[in-house]
């Protein structure tokens, strides 16, 4: 999709330009391009295995692109880029691990520094303010390994945000949350994007929880991407071209269903409910 936006909101923050990645001989991403501007809420939507995590790793500089480039703030990204905050998908801690929510947030502030963090009033105040901002005061002194999924997400968001990034990447934050916690996390992120002008790129295999807040969408399928507003991208013609065969985009009660005509070809085995019906719901 073309990216000629005339609203001029925010400066260009992240520019992914024609990125291709091959892992073990398999092309995971092919010719992926999109841009993110300051304060924008962008959803990175694609089924499992579409290449979402690989794309994040490229943006974070943990995975080299075979072709193309990633520009952060108009420049090639450096190894430690304080402009980008990251919330990973997998964060499993033993409940015995001596790490409270406030310790995790404190590490967000200065984990790259040598030595032990000396307790100071300003440091504590900054951590408390951050905990407050993500509604985490109630479990500030709990061990992270004892938190519920939604609480852990908020702790990780605080860990990333306290370093004052301009762009926040979240890898499938809703994947293991119940509907209510998921809604809370999305609302929190939308508030952060609006109030602090932080751009948000959130990956998900389901776009519906994000429809109300998502300003732009990057739709990944089979390693290729289409980007633009939801109206521009989530259309029968665009997604059919992306998938390489016909798909229908249905809008039902404000929800979007992407349905493939031929079952099996795009079998999304991650959800057994999908395979029981003849139609294939991709997103």
């Amino acid at each position: 999709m073309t990216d000629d936006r005339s609203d001029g909101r925010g400066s260009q923050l992240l520019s992914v330009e024609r990125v291709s990645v091959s892992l073990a001989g398999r092309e995971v991403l092919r010719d992926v391009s999109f841009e993110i501007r300051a304060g924008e809420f962008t959803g990175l939507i694609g089924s499992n295995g579409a290449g979402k995590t690989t794309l994040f790793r490229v943006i974070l500089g943990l995975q080299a692109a075979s072709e193309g480039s990633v520009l952060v703030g108009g420049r090639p990204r450096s190894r430690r880029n304080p402009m980008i905050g990251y919330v990973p998908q997998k964060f499993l801690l033993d409940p015995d691990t001596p790490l409270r929510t406030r310790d995790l947030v404190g590490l967000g502030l200065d984990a790259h520094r040598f030595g032990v963090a000396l307790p100071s009033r300003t440091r504590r105040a900054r951590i408390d303010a951050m905990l407050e901002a993500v509604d985490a005061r109630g479990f500030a002194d709990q061990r992270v390994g004892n938190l519920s999924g939604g609480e852990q997400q908020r702790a990780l968001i605080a860990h990333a945000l306290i370093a004052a990034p301009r762009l926040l990447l979240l890898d499938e934050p809703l994947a293991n949350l119940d509907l209510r916690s998921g809604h809370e996390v999305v609302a929190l992120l939308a508030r952060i994007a609006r109030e602090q002008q932080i751009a948000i790129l959130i990956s998900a295999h389901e776009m519906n929880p994000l429809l109300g807040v998502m300003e732009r969408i990057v739709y990944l399928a089979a390693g290729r991407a289409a980007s633009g507003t939801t109206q521009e991208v989530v259309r029968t013609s665009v997604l059919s071209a992306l998938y390489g065969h016909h798909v229908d985009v249905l809008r039902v009660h404000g929800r979007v269903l992407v349905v493939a005509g031929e079952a099996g070809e795009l079998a999304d085995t991650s959800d057994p409910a999908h395979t029981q019906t003849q139609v294939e719901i991709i997103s």
Partner: protein
Amino acid sequence: MNGALAAIVAPGFFASAPVQVAAAVGALVALVSGTVGVFTVIRGQAFAGEALGDIGTTGESGAFLVGVGPLWGLAGVAVAAAAVMELIGIQRPRGRDLATGIVLGAGLGLAALLLYLYNVDHSASGATFTILFGSPFAISSSTIPLVVAFAVVALGLMLALFRPLLLSSVSPELAAARGIPVRLVGGLYLLALAAAVALAAFTIGTILSTALLVGPAATALRLTRSPARALLAAGLIGVGAMWLGILMAYDSYDWPPAGHGWPVSFFVVTLILLGYLLAGIRHGRRRRDGGRRSSTLRTTALERPGD
């Protein structure tokens, strides 16, 4: 009152030179082991710690055979083994146990040969016992500077690396995303672990060194929630067990068979186990209160789809 005290602290305890050396060296070693051990437990590298201690048998018996200081032999072999583990792939979760196991097997095979050669040469089995089970009362005061040097290296590394190491240990992914050189930090940590294990093996024996490394740390994890406090608690628990163990071993000269004090290591390791179990009673009560939450978290974690 004085009578009761005399019954616990045998006359001459504090004036005895071997006791003084054992108490000083033991405390320093326990402090190092406890602090390093907290990260060993968090990183799930207890097996690597155990292996480095066991392999120390090779180094110490080699040192006996060649006639250099045992601490040099222990540390040299531990550092070399740590380097080999790192190269084979201890940084990958699955490679960790394999790398450790392979290095451990090779090291112990060599230890068997060295001990055999030494015993053939000296027709004395005392060295084997000292190497395996330690003997703090036999520590010469001349090794104190070397013990201090090793302790400074290990503690210095832990203090310097504390924050990057903590983040790398709880989430290598988060640390890497922040630009922390996770592998370098892990390698330097292995160096500190090798120094700590060498010190522990020197004091309470190669096969008991893990108890001092993992025991106080695991106990501390049951008692504290903050990482810095866990380091402090583990160090103090280790020192407490060490000193009490030395006191009891000194008292045991009067126990049957009289005139041969029981091994200090036995008391230290038993005290550490008791401390761990006692902490478990308190911990279990607290855990039942919050048990429901952690079990739901575990369930959701298992269902997490991979991407």
